[in-house]
């Protein structure tokens, strides 16, 4: 059983997954932030690998990617930083990123290296289902990495079932058809999450996009297994001199 699956076995309510862009705000912040996330009670860590053209992200996360790239972050650098992460971080770790930098790194080498470092899963929003099934999925499985698909309120029920069947770890429910960082109307989100709940999916469901504080986290968690916070955390780190303190303060405000 993977680290992610074990987490959901122990805890299936109010699971908090926190997204941060690797190499932001400083090149070497990544592991410090991961440790602080663990100390302050996050359940899962989603590390964004910065890309020049992040289509699915809104302005705040894109700006953090630009800063991370200016700081010199690359997949190679990130893997150097993560080499010893398992000596201090026990939480499941997911890498989120776009296909192009991974293809340049070498897709199989990327999976092999990530797995060797103790990474548990991947979220690659621009890897489509067809290419996943025909080319990349078997490689991801070979290295025992979980793969998490996104679903939106526009995704048809049949397609939700198919993406759920292809996913392992959890299913990522985008709370609306939107790039990251847009405010959401939680009423509409609840109805959508209840629809998902009624489908009796194989995977736990985490809600992403637009979760920014305790109220929206609680609301989103009501009809799902938990939620993902990204943009609001990136904002909290903006200009922070002590990233550990900023991280712990932010997470405690949400829990």
């Amino acid at each position: 059983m993977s680290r992610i699956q074990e987490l959901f076995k122990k805890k299936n309510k109010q699971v908090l997954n926190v997204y941060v862009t690797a190499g932001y705000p400083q090149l070497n912040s990544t592991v410090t932030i991961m440790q602080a996330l663990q100390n302050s009670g996050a359940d899962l860590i989603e590390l964004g690998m910065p890309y020049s053209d992040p289509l699915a992200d809104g302005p705040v996360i894109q700006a953090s990617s630009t800063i991370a790239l200016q700081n010199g972050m690359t997949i190679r650098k990130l893997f150097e930083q993560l080499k010893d992460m398992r000596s201090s971080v026990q939480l499941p770790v997911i890498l989120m990123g776009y296909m192009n930098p991974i293809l340049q790194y070498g897709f199989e080498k990327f999976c092999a290296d990530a797995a060797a470092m103790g990474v548990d899963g991947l979220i690659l929003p621009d890897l489509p289902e067809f290419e996943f099934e025909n080319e990349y999925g078997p490689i991801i499985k070979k290295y025992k990495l979980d793969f998490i698909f996104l679903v939106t309120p526009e995704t048809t029920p049949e397609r939700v079932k198919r993406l759920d069947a292809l996913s392992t770890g959890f299913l990522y429910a985008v709370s609306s058809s939107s790039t990251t960082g847009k405010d959401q109307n939680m009423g509409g989100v609840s109805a959508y999450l209840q629809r998902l709940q009624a489908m009796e999916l194989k995977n736990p469901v985490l809600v992403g996009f637009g979760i920014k504080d305790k109220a929206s986290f609680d609301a989103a968690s009501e009809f799902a297994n938990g939620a993902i916070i990204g943009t609001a955390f990136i904002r909290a780190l903006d200009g922070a001199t002590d990233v550990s303190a900023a991280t712990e303060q932010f997470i405690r405000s949400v829990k």
Partner: protein
Amino acid sequence: MSTTIYQKPDAQGYYGQFGGAYIPEMLHRNVEELRNQYKQIIGSKDFRDEYQSLLRDYVGRPTPLYHAVRLSAQFNTNIYLKREDLCHTGSHKLNNALGQILLALRLGKKRIIAETGAGQHGVATATVCALKGIECIVYMGEKDIQRQAPNVARMKMLGATVIPATSGSKTLKDATNEAIRDWINNPNDTHYIIGSVVGPHPYPDMVASFQSVISEEIRKQLKEKTGSELPTHVFACVGGGSNAAGTFYHFTEEGSVKLVAVEAAGHGVDSGMSAATTRLGKPGVLHGSKSLVMQTEDGQVVEPHSISAGLDYPGIGPMHANLFTSGRGTFLSATDEEAVRAAFNLTQQEGIIPALESSHALAGLHQVSFKKDDVVVLCLSGRGDKDMATYMQAMGL
């Protein structure tokens, strides 16, 4: 009927190893809707009647195929110019914008978004939106807004909202990202008109279909003028590759016809200031399809350079990536300086001021040796009005 291994993608949108639809789930429904409906809609009689009649009476088609006698004498061969510069709004871009608007209306869309580099696609889109009374939003890199002021003014006069793309490198690639984000955030009422043969399947195929009128006409016109439908060479410049796709379309499976694409070398292919994607790019994913992409070793997309904003793009359409890697197409490149020189030469030999983009195709003529009885068709994709500032600078005015 011959098979179409170069002209059309397979069911998943692949031309050889290039193409596909590398899109986030948030775009899936819109792209799927297009994929399921575009062939049927553009094949319907209702659509074709309206499209054909507007191509004729509004765009001004067929555009002439002009035997450029003095230019031919210079190269000691027979050169015909396909006069897309005479299209309404000044370039081939209108063929696609018109087709996509008619499609969008039939899909029930109320709002049109587009990206633009030089502003030609933005102007074409704003024009047909004015024609149809539909809302138009054009994303344009902040840098391009500054260097293409007349086209920005045209779009505004046509009633479009021009939104500056301020992220990344502030040019065409970033305008494309912003347009895609807009589409993600407006999933129901909006159609995104991509301006070239790039983007996720079915865009490359759809845009190529709309531009294929160029080579459809060339075949007929050439037959009338020379007795044969087939030239020995067809030339076109390549930014994303839509005028080249249209020019090549009905010749891709005719082995005797050389397909010659000319990219922008900028200051020189190895200068670090270039947009010659086939020379500098590697396979990768950009704007929803797998193709050749100019990028760093770490897979970050790099900012290209060309004097012509319309060729200043770090990728090419998947159809062209396949023509290049398979060897079916010949890919040349011309520098900024060669393009400007070719523009002045055409102006002085033929009395036609070409767009800077098209001037790259003209510059490419110098890199091929022709026989006396060769028949060369060159797509003059646009006119040079929008580039007068650059030409004035070259004249020291």
